[in-house]
């Protein structure tokens, strides 16, 4: 309700005036379409999901199901399949977020200065980002073929060129550590070749979007700061590290938080390119949850899937909270 106004000089009736009531009614009518859809499809479904996660509901259509308390959550933290998808997605989020942020900052810096054709380059760089995840996945399925252009490029520069990228399940550390090793722990094994191929694709296609955000922020930094710094004899490098990076802090928070939320939920590329294979090394929680609700590959388990979704959401929330805290605390120290 309306905040109590400062002591009124004239005694006013506590009720809203009829004009104000009319205004309130009109405002809520204007907001009604959003409020109704948000109440049902965002908050309603979230509450419903929370409820389902404590039941043993199987399929979507009405069937008898019972309340099982926190059994689903207990089962999830001991479920190897789910833990494997978490290990995969943690590697994915870590590597993709870091590399695409660095790439975007570098590209934005390269573009941000007085130059001709800036519009042109910006347009060219951004264009591939408007294509759908399905288009990108199809195109890279072609490029990653054993006889595809990635191998052709490696062949030209004289590297081994016979990798079946999306069928190779060897983990990064199994490759790096000499000798024929197999590591059974899905996290310690490191991301598989197939998984790293999907990472490379997504880093490549996300850099331009993030680049635009950094570019917009760079253009808001007053030029006088650099003038003053160069008068004081600061080198280009010093200017970059002492002026540019600290002033980009809010953009870093935004980009990291958005990337974290996005990467942890990766689904489309897995569904189109690998369906979680080879040997579950590209399976993600999003994909597993999707399989659980539709009962593809497994029997449908909606309740269990909902519990996994909340665990995933908690993990995302935890990481974004850490990022905000870490970077904002750093800002106070400066």
């Amino acid at each position, binding site marked *: 309700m309306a905040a109590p106004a400062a002591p009124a000089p004239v005694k006013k009736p506590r009720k809203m005036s009829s004009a104000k009531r009319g205004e309130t009614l009109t405002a809520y009518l204007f907001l009604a379409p*959003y409020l109704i859809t948000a109440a049902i499809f965002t908050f309603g479904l979230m509450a419903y999901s929370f409820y389902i996660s404590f039941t043993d509901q199987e399929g979507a259509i009405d069937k008898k199901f019972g309340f099982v308390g926190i059994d689903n959550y207990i089962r999830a933290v001991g479920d190897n399949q789910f833990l494997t998808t978490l290990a995969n997605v943690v590697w994915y989020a870590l590597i993709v977020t870091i590399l695409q942020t660095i790439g975007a900052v570098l590209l934005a810096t390269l573009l941000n200065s007085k130059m001709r054709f800036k519009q042109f380059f910006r347009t060219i760089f951004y264009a591939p980002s408007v294509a759908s995840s399905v288009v990108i996945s199809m195109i890279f399925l072609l490029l990653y073929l054993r006889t595809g252009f990635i191998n052709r490029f490696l062949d030209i520069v004289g590297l081994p060129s016979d990798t079946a990228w999306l069928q190779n399940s060897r983990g990064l550390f199994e490759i790096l550590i000499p000798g024929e090793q197999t590591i059974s722990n899905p996290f310690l094994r490191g991301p598989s070749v197939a998984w790293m191929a999907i990472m490379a694709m997504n880093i490549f296609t996300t850099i331009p979007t993030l680049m635009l955000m950094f570019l917009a922020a760079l253009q808001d930094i007053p030029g006088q700061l650099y003038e003053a710094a160069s008068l004081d004899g600061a080198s280009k490098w010093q200017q970059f590290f002492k002026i540019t990076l600290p002033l980009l802090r809010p953009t870093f928070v935004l980009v990291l*938080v958005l990337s974290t939320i996005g990467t942890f939920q990766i689904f489309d590329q897995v569904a189109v390119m690998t369906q979680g294979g080879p040997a579950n090394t590209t399976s993600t929680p*999003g994909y597993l949850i999707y399989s659980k609700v539709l009962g593809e590959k497994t029997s449908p388990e909606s309740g269990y899937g909902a519990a996994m979704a909340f665990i995933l959401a908690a993990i995302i929330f935890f990481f974004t909270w850490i990022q905000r805290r870490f970077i904002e605390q750093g800002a106070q120290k400066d």
Partner: protein
Amino acid sequence: MAVTLNQEKTNPSVQTAPTPRGFSVLWTIVRYALLLALGLLFFMPFIISFFSTFKTTNEILSWPPTILPKEWLWDNWAAAWNTRIPGVSSNIFPRWLFNSLWVAVVTVIAQLFFCSLAAYAFARMEFPGKNVLFSIMLASMAIPGVITLIPGYVFFAKLNNLPFGIRLGINTYWPILLPNLAVPFGIFLLTQFFKSIPKELEEAATIDGAGRFRTYWSIVLPMARPALITLGILSFQGSWNNFTGPLLFLRKPDLMTLTVGLNFFKGQYVNDWPKIMIGTMFNAIPILIIFFIFSRYYVEGQAAAGVKG
């Protein structure tokens, strides 16, 4: 920070430190070369895929691959256009294109109307609960979509058995359209823009006795054209590219949108590479054309997305 949508931001002159002239010329050349090479690199996957649509599957799978086809099979496109699959009574790719198109158009119209209505209330009207609602709306943008995946499916599965044979559930378009009628990002974008428009004109209209809706419809909306175009193309792109929703809810081939249809087609005809790539082009080319026509608005939409942080 205000969202500037109608004028190109001018770059505050970044003064370069005095450097030897020769070095600076060299650096300029290197930079342009680097940017051109990167631009080409980002575009290369599209160029390669486009040319592969004129090849045979055999040629696509042969080593070493070449960018240009050895023999140009122009008929591939007509063959793809006329492809039929069991269970669908018309050519499959035109059908999926049409489904994608009308879903996108309905989404755009709904979002422009409902988001701008809500944004007008947030930007111009005073009512109890305004700030709380606006904060909740912003916070809700951080809710991971995966949470509503399962209940969404369970909920809509139940809506297929309503009285009078009404079906709103699986294998209808309602589960894709309804949740996207008004979205927080669109409301936020337009609210910021409406706040940046001077109030005088509206006040004059109010004195002339125009009601709230008239003021919104005939004064504010026309002035918000740039922001509406930005939201329009972003929501078109979102709907056109949407995969998860249609994948979950459209389980019959004749109902699918192009993204899901393509994935389905790929699953059925693993080795028909030319058709798969032509279908991919059907999805990519329209959105690329829209992008090149409206690129200014895309860039500004991205910048506006950056403001919310």
